[in-house]
């Protein structure tokens, strides 16, 4: 049996990805996390001196705090298995990636373990976020300079 034939057989045999179920659970999970975010943001706007715009910062921090607790108590991986991208894409997923790596590497110490490994999953998101922001802002600045577009 060659590689192509086996790849076909493997695809026939392996359980099919439940696309529809995954989409529905991702939608519900992601939607719910964002809904909770909206409530938290309303809380900051009502009880503290935040506007609709500035409230997103404390909201994000609060959600990451909740993600830390869920990760620490072993619940986030269960949500992740159910929700898929629904719990990975919101900022709580970013928090889970950082917190889970931090907890995991505690046994190698706080400097070499936690410090060095905290961003081993989430670091690439920061890299590509910063780099794409640089490129996009640079292009736009140049285009504005040459009068192609305006701010």
């Amino acid at each position: 049996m060659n590689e192509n034939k086996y790849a076909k057989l493997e695809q026939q045999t392996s359980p099919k990805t439940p696309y529809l179920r995954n989409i529905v659970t991702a939608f519900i999970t992601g939607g719910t996390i964002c809904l909770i975010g909206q409530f938290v943001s309303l809380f900051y706007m009502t009880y503290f001196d935040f506007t609709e715009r500035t409230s997103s910062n404390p909201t994000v921090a609060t959600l990451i705090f909740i993600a830390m607790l869920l990760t620490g108590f072993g619940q986030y991986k269960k949500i992740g298995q159910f929700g898929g991208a629904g719990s990975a894409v919101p900022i709580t997923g970013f928090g889970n990636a950082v917190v889970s790596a931090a907890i995991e590497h505690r046994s190698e110490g706080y400097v070499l373990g936690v410090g060095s490994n905290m961003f081993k999953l989430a670091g690439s998101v920061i890299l590509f976020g910063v780099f794409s922001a640089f490129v996009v802002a640079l292009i736009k600045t140049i285009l504005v300079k040459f009068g192609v577009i305006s701010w």
Partner: protein
Amino acid sequence: MSIFITAFIVGGLICVVGQLMFDVAKLTPAHTLCTLVVIGSILDGFGMYEPLIDFAGAGATIPITSFGNALTHGAMAEAEKHGIIGVLTGMFEVTSSGISAAILFGFIASLIFKSEGKA
């Protein structure tokens, strides 16, 4: 109150895009999240992400796409004032509450929690 409905729907839909990248494009979670961050950044370049935030609130600020948007937005705001140099300074000035919160809470978690291999 309609913001709650749009937050749920828009946030859910962005996650569905992520799920399709997992299942259909067979990307790893890391590749998916990086792609979404870049998409968020590009959308802001076209000035399309801020209107989305106005429309959906947390539905647009909670998904990771808003991280790309925040960085780009900071860079462009400074660039508007200081030109090319502003691109750099603006980006470095952006204090992302996401990163600092993740660092702080990640460290605190490592002080108090141990991972458990429970199913």
